[in-house]
């Protein structure tokens, strides 16, 4: 039973060690990456990719707009 507790303690030490080491490395790598991106990243290719991809999400599609215009027209006619 005591060996089991010892194993548990060891696992805790290793576990928290690995978690902290991993996340500290990740902090470093991420910070470095952000620095590099700030300096070099705004290359035209990437930013183009960024901008063309963005709108897809929040613009209603042409079909929807058409349907809405139609509905608006119908709605108005029905109120005249």
């Amino acid at each position, binding site marked *: *039973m005591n060996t089991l*507790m010892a194993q*548990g303690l060891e696992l*805790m030490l290793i*576990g928290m060690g690995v*978690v902290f080491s991993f996340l500290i490395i*990740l902090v470093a790598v991420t910070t470095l*990456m952000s620095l590099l991106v700030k300096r070099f990243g705004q290359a035209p290719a990437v930013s183009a990719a*960024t901008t063309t991809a963005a709108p897809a999400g929040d613009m209603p599609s042409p079909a929807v707009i058409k349907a809405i215009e139609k509905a608006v027209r119908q709605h108005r006619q029905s109120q005249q």
Partner: protein
Amino acid sequence: MDKLETLWHSTGLFHLSGGQLIMLLVCLGLLWLAINKKFEPLLLLPIGFGGLLANIPVAGLAESAISQAMHFGSQDLLASMAQVLGMDADAGREALYKAAEGAGPAVQDQLHHLAQKANYGDGILYLIYTVGLMTGIFPLLIFMGVGAMTDFGPLLANPRTLLLGAAAQFGIFAALLGALALNFLGMEFSLADAAAIGIIGGADGPTSIYVTTKLAPELLGAIAVAAYSYMALVPIIQPPIIRALTTAKERTIKMEQLRPVSQTEKILFPILLLVLVALVLPDAAPLLGMFCLGNLMKESGVVSRLVDTTSNALINIVTIMLGLAVGAKLSAEQFLVMETLGILVLGLVAFMIGTATGVLMAKLLNRLSHHPVNPIIGAAGVSAVPMAARVANKVGLEANPHNFLLMHAMGPNVAGVIGSAVAAGVLLNFAG
């Protein structure tokens, strides 16, 4: 009137055991929590319902064909199965079933064949569990969907908050030790069991389920129920702990506004994370790999139709199936044991300690650095996304009605997801 007796023998009431009755009530309780108390209903409703189905007597929805044949088959069938096992038919149904469970693949194939010829088939919950959970594919697909819904922006704007997500994982290992300590009180938790219990403290459903399926499948029902229940209870568990560990002044600390994060950084982050996992901790690769895939798909902006399906139809389908499969493990003999009480207590302890260490880490950061950190957001490091971040925001507003901590808390919140996946990798490696 032979058939009438058969009829009565075929009712559930005739076969209903006390354990099944209690489990049916427990599962009704879970449904009540899910529906009336809104405790993580997306998971607890299917889990509770799966538990109901699993505890319907005779129906065998959560049983293999072999198990059903062994328990309800005719004496002839039992004799021919005993013969395959090289045993005496009088050994008793339970003894035969134990032997069948331990048998090699060739023998199991033959037993399955005999069961099928006698019209016994694998129950639907058993099939879903085998296909989706034993392979690990359901929690991994859910993690992909979670990745597709996660925004690392706040984390990238303030990477130090990763450390809060690290500190909050202390709850995992504390609960692990606690589980081992319970052995002195007569429970019987192996190191693998203790690791699976500890991971409740990760406050991440799919991670808990993935780890438990690998390390201690017989505890899956209790651990999943505990994990999702405590996640739902975060608004009740965390505030008193936060208040106890911080002064009113600390809670009013205003943090610098987060800088805008470019899409390039957001695209590179999941890739970097995956490469780091590959080089340092391959045991965390399945979980973090699928998580990063979902996030990369989202941030890349070039596969929006895949992201849409991943974070809707796919994750929804898998959520239902996962819930049912977890419910399949809510059997009386696995759930109605002292160990379940231990799991429920330790899960709560894990949440509380994780919250506390997250807050304390934030206070430590505040001493070491010039940039102020409101210690409240440390509590969000346990993950329980996005509930814990909202709780941090609410506690912050109580202290200072103009201090919005939500975005600041999202950093440690998603860091906690990474942290517990890393911890899961360590546990799988050393306790597996």
